């Protein structure tokens, strides 16, 4: 069992999750287009969710195949349940993420409708232009 390889691969996965989080945060903050912001936000949410599941993963032991946390024996003896505990991964992060994904979707739907309304009012979804338009409006009202 090559533990060094496992550590390196695991570190690569964690690092790429960080890179994804960072890059999508950058896009959500810096890109002016609302649609691009929404895309970046979905990627951000997914990366965080992946990271949570990754924390719930467990180390492989030699000769044991990890299993999803589902008991496949419908008449379990105590021996079966003990083996299940040896093999199964942590179900709690998965349950948390399950609802988090649906919440993310709801938020995205809401943002999409808001962006659409913004487009209908301003004729654009570029936030730089929208800011300029609003400044112009405010200046006109002040004068």
């Amino acid at each position, binding site marked *: 069992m090559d533990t060094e390889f496992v550590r390196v691969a695991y570190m690569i996965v964690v690092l790429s999750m960080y890179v994804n989080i960072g890059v999508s945060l950058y896009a959500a903050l810096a890109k002016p287009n609302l649609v691009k912001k929404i895309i970046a936000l979905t990627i951000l949410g997914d990366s965080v969710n992946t990271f949570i599941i990754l924390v719930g993963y467990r180390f492989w032991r030699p000769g044991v*195949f*990890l*299993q*999803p946390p*589902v008991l*496949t024996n419908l008449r379990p003896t105590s021996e079966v349940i003990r083996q299940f505990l040896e093999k199964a991964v942590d179900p709690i992060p998965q349950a948390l993420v399950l609802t988090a994904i649906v919440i993310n979707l709801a938020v995205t739907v809401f943002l999409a409708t808001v962006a659409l309304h913004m487009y209908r009012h301003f004729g654009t979804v570029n936030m730089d232009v929208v800011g300029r338009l609003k400044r112009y409006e405010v200046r006109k009202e002040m004068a």
Partner: protein
Amino acid sequence: MNLATWVTDFIVFSMPFYFAAFALYIARAIKGPTVPDMVLAVDALSYDLAAFLVLLGILFRAPIMIPCAIVLVLWVYALDIYMAKYFEAGEIGE
């Protein structure tokens, strides 16, 4: 010879070929001069990934993970349809 080790070895040896195919598909998905090309590459990638997921389920001794493949196939079809509708119609709900 044991059936379990035979099947495991077979799947393990088939993996590099799948990886090579996936890498080429991803190359086309990234390179694709037009958007439809990229859609085609993602499609082909996902259909093959569905087959690969079933083999991985056998490798992991986890037969209950099969619904993943079916869901992937269904939704990638949906991606196809959206793109077709985008190119063909004036509105998505038309």
